[in-house]
């Protein structure tokens, strides 16, 4: 006798559908996972870890990031301390080329294979693209073979082509949240404009890095919506951030995402995106602390940003590298990415 659909356990479904067949969960299924009681989180994380090992392998991709142009952004992303529209204490700053080269070298020395150059802008102007071009040349002249990614906002086709010509292999452009929630988070541009940039990146042959931030007032249903919208995009990488309520932003008084809820989200996103690089990004220090970071790594995560972020600080890189060693998780080598 077959159980009625409402009686089928979502983790049993996921075991057959995601683990065995590699088919990500639907929106309704992701929502069920996000609603699992706390005592089932260990079971969820164990399954998500199995899925990650089956479809992505045991390696962990390590990345470092740096802000090339900080603050003064004309956009109003409500989570961001770099928006010029809010009374945030973050002031505008430009990193010079020697500073960029040093940052890339620091990142490579951790064993990282990825270095992402980030700018707080709506989209890059000629000056910024010129700085990126000169920076990449200088990083290579320094003998650094690390893979270079960029995150420079919305792009035109011409700018996409320029980045490809510079050798940028991956581009980050986060959708940030569910399409239905996006207008509550950003009003100066649309979710669809971001989607258009992502399609251009994919069509140009660059790898697509697209994720978002959990804890911006979205409902669980919207979190599930976001997971399947990301799956529809088929990104190479999804960075998963947890809101850091930064002073001066409209979200400064939002609560930090609670650890159990964050772990549930990690597991659910892995079950929606079985083949994607799922990266621990900003906010994990506040949300998880040390113990939770390990649980996340054993719950579907297979990539990590080490060291500091753009305007906030992270754990020392060595602490995360030690954690990976303790967990017997090999770091992806550069030779595997080329």
């Amino acid at each position, binding site marked *: 006798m077959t159980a009625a659909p409402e009686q089928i356990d979502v983790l049993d479904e996921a075991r057959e559908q995601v683990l065995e067949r590699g088919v990500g969960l639907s929106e309704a299924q992701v929502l069920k996972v996000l609603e699992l009681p706390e005592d089932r989180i260990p079971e969820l994380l164990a399954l998500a870890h199995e899925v990650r090992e089956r479809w992505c392998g045991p390696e962990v991709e390590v990345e470092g990031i740096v*802000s090339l142009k*900080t603050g003064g952004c004309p956009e109003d992303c409500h989570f961001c301390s770099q928006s010029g529209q809010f009374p945030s204490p973050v002031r*505008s700053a430009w990193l010079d080329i020697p*500073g960029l080269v040093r940052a890339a070298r620091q990142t490579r020395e951790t064993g990282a294979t990825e270095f992402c150059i980030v700018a707080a802008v709506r989209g890059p102007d000629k000056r910024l693209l010129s700085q990126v071009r000169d920076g990449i040349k200088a990083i290579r002249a320094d003998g650094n073979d690390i893979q270079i990614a960029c995150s420079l906002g919305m792009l035109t086709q011409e700018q996409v082509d320029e980045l490809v010509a510079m050798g940028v292999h991956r581009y980050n452009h986060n959708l940030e949240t569910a399409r239905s929630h996006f207008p509550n988070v950003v009003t100066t541009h649309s979710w669809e404009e971001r989607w258009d940039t992502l399609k251009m990146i994919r069509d140009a042959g660059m790898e697509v890095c697209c994720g978002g931030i959990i804890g911006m007032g979205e409902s669980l249903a919207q979190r599930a919506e976001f997971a399947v919208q990301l799956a529809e995009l088929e990104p190479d990488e999804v960075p998963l951030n947890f809101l*850091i309520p930064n002073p001066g932003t409209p979200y400064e008084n939002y609560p930090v995402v609670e650890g159990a809820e964050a772990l549930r989200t990690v597991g659910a996103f892995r079950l929606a995106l079985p083949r994607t690089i799922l990266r621990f990004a900003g906010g994990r220090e506040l949300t998880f602390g040390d113990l939770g970071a390990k649980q996340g790594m054993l719950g579907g995560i297979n990539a990590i940003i080490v060291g500091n972020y753009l305007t906030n600080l992270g754990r020392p890189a060595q602490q995360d590298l030690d954690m990976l060693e303790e967990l017997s998780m090999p770091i992806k080598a550069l030779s595997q990415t080329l």
Partner: protein
Amino acid sequence: MTYCSFCGKDTADGDHAFCRQRLSMIDPPRYCSECARRMVVQVTPDGWAARCSRHGEITSAR
């Protein structure tokens, strides 16, 4: 008088436990402790540098 590097207010005025917690975990200093001016801060993968227009630069390397 000294100022809180996280919120920019007088350290003797009010409770700065939350500020200290943030500074110990995820935030570089944003305000000069001597004059409370907002500083220009550059975060890099393994450190930070914060510059006050009046009192100069401090870094995570000390």
